[in-house]
Every structure is written in structure tokens, then in C-alpha cells.
């Protein structure tokens, strides 16, 4: 007998939190895939450690989302018992991990974005969210440094590493749009002081990306009109596979613990 799915309510505050919590959760899942597979032991440690930080951040945010939702769902139920359409992470974080260059390029984009988001959330009207952000902002700083180091190192490395990094940037670029899109959930968060509007984070994010990419010898690709839609629950074809792997144990053995 498998565990039935849960459904969270449609409150904008809960959705705003799920977008952030799910971004951390799914990033963590993708980074954890490198455990035992990274090119060198030090990177195995680094990627696993960052996955752990992101998982911890996801736990805090999902717990708070469950409280605001008011149906009594805890972090584990929210992580493992929702269906695909109920996850609100941007598509960027669910894309397959790709090669090492793609992972580092995505880590740079995601950590720079999250760093700006956590900074804004430190001033949240929700004290618990502000406290989570106060801790996460320090962790994201280390993640960003690490990813920026690698992006420059790969871009400034061999022809092969530079070509792979360029391919990664070209492939990921259209998915960055979703990180800075305005909508009603965003507007409600600004109105209640829950958190910053995501479009307001774009200028700082872009400035950092341009600077790091310049050091890496890369220029920005042309703007894309593509809009991915993970934040409203419409995901890429990769999400179902990711969830199947992530949820299997809790679905097959409800409430199972280590």
C-alpha cells in the first residue's frame, strides 16, 4: 500500500515559501547525486557539503510553509508526499546535473540568486523566515565563492574545460529568466513584507554573473524569450524522474525511518 499524496493550500504566502524551500530541496537532491561521482575527492566533499546546507535550509523553510498552510504537514510530508504539480521550484534546479562544468555554472547562478534572496529575507516580516535567512546567508556566501572559483578555473583552463563551460552557460541561460519573473505571489509577498520581489534581485545577480563570467573569459549569451514555469508547478520532463527517485522510499514504506 503506497502513501497517498498531500495537497497544500493556495495561499500566496505558502506558495512564496514553497518556491524557496523547493528550490533548496531540489538543488540539494541534484548536488547529492555527485556523492561518490565527483572528479576528485575534495569536490565530492564540497558538493555533498553544499547539498547538506541546502537540505538544512529546505527543512527550515518547508517546516515554516507547513505551519502557515495550517493543515499540519511537516517538512517530511512536504518533501516526500506532494505530486509533481505541487512543487514550486524554478525549472533551473531540476535539470539533470550534466557534466562538472554545468553543475558549477548552475551552482554559481543559483547561489548568487539565493544569496540575494536570503539577504532580502533577513528583513522578512516573518521572524522565523528571517532567522532561517540569517543563517543561510552565511552558507550561501561560501557556496558562491566556491562556484565562482570553479567557473573561472574552468573558463581559464584548457580548451576542453572552456568549451564545456561555454556549452553549460548556453544551455542554462534561458532558464535564468524564471528567477526574476514578477507575478501575484511575488506581489503579495512584497505587500505583506514576507520577502523581496524576485525581479528586484536581478540587477545585483546580473552584475555578479557578468563579472565572474568576464574573469572566466565568457560573454553573456543573447537574451532568450523562453519562460520556464516551475514556480507555478509546470515542470520539465526531468522532474518526474527526480521525484520518483527522491520519494520512492517514503511512498513504498510510509513513515519509514533510518
Amino acid at each position, binding site marked *: 500500500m503506497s502513501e497517498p499524496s498531500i495537497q497544500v493550500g493556495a495561499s500566496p504566502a505558502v506558495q512564496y515559501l514553497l518556491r524557496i524551500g523547493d528550490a533548496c530541496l531540489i538543488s540539494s537532491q541534484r548536488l547529492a547525486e555527485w556523492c561518490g561521482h565527483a572528479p576528485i575527492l*575534495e569536490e565530492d*566533499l*564540497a558538493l555533498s*557539503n*553544499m*547539498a*547538506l*546546507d*541546502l*537540505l*538544512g*535550509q529546505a*527543512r*527550515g523553510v518547508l517546516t515554516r510553509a507547513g505551519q502557515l498552510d495550517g493543515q499540519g504537514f511537516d517538512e517530511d510530508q512536504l518533501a516526500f508526499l506532494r505530486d509533481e504539480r505541487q512543487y514550486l521550484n524554478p525549472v533551473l534546479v531540476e535539470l539533470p546535473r550534466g557534466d562538472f562544468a554545468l553543475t558549477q555554472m548552475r551552482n554559481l547562478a543559483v547561489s548568487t540568486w539565493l544569496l540575494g534572496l536570503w539577504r532580502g529575507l533577513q528583513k522578512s516580516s516573518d*521572524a*522565523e523566515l*528571517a*532567522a*532561517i535567512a*540569517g*543563517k*543561510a546567508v*552565511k*552558507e550561501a*556566501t*561560501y557556496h*558562491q*565563492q*566556491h562556484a*565562482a*572559483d570553479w*567557473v*573561472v*578555473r574552468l573558463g581559464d583552463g584548457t580548451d576542453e574545460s572552456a568549451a564545456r563551460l561555454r556549452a553549460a552557460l548556453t544551455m542554462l541561460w534561458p532558464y535564468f529568466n524564471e528567477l526574476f519573473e514578477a507575478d501575484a505571489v511575488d506581489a503579495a509577498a512584497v505587500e505583506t513584507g514576507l520577502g523581496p520581489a524576485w525581479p528586484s534581485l536581478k540587477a545585483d545577480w546580473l552584475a*555578479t554573473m557578468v*563579472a*565572474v563570467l568576464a*574573469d572566466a573569459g565568457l560573454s553573456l549569451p543573447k537574451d532568450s524569450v523562453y519562460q520556464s514555469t516551475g514556480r507555478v508547478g509546470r515542470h520539465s520532463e526531468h522532474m518526474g524522474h527526480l521525484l520518483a527517485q527522491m520519494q520512492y522510499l517514503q511512498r513504498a514504506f510510509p513513515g519509514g525511518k533510518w
Partner: protein
Amino acid sequence: MSNPVEHNSCGRLDAAWEVLRQIPDPEVPVISLCELGIVRDLRETAGGLEVVLTPTYSGCPATELIQDNVRAGLAAFGEIQITMQRAPAWTTDWISEEGKAKLKAYGIVPPGLTHLTQGQPIRFVRRGAQARLACPRCGSENTEKTSAFGSTPCKALYRCLACLEPFEHFKPI
């Protein structure tokens, strides 16, 4: 410690603090939870004590074990309630001087004060010269970082180019 500890109010708290000062951090057992700076408060409740802890890192896997160890250590004081408090966020600046000295003696270079590293530009080539860490064994500053992350999220890996020994660094955060 099989009988409930009988003391006046102040003495009870002092005795409980004394117990907490003996409970080691599970991942870096050379320092105690108090020296690490994660015990934020200790209060008396109707049936026992409330211990206020703060996590080091959001995803630190030792958090649950630390709670269990605190509960077990203080069992003689009645019902132990543990409150996790995130704000203000833990910083390595809260590691006591004694704790830092013990870390160094154990072979882990203690963190410098966080204000020294904050606000540095993040970019690879322009981060600028950072102070070299001194090897905890031979004291040489001829050292290099081998990995930004170590066996736990809080540490980085280094090696000494003079005595050739590897060592860890507790990162400022």
C-alpha cells in the same frame, strides 16, 4: 546521578551548566558545546529545565545527536525541554578563547574573527591576498588550501608545505 539533583534554584542552574560544560561536540569532541557557543540559554521550568540551543549550520547532521546528548546529560534535572533558536545566527566568533586554544592543540586551525573576511569580493582572480594560515604543528605560514570543504561543513582542508602535514581549518562564518 540516579537521584534528582536537589539544590536551590541558583545552584541547580550552576550544576546544570557544569554538566553542559562537560558535553563534547560530537564531531569535534575536543571542545564542549559551551565552548562552541551553541548553548544560548538555560532556564528553569516547572518540571525541569529548558535548554536553548542554536544550530551551527542549517544542515548540520549532528544537531539531533547534540539534542540527545544534552537530554541524556541532564536527565537527573527532571524534564528537559530543548528549544532550537536560529536567531541571532550562530557565528564562529562565539567559540570561546579556551575553545579556540583547544582546537589549535587538536590540530584544527581555529577561525579568525568574521569581520576580517566579510565583504571580500567573491571573484577568483581579484579576491586578493589572504592572510596565510599558520600550521598548527610547526607554525610555518607556508601553507595552502587543498579543499574549501572538509569532513564536516564547518571545516576546510589545508596542508603545510614546510612540515608536509595536512591540517584542518575551522572556517569563520
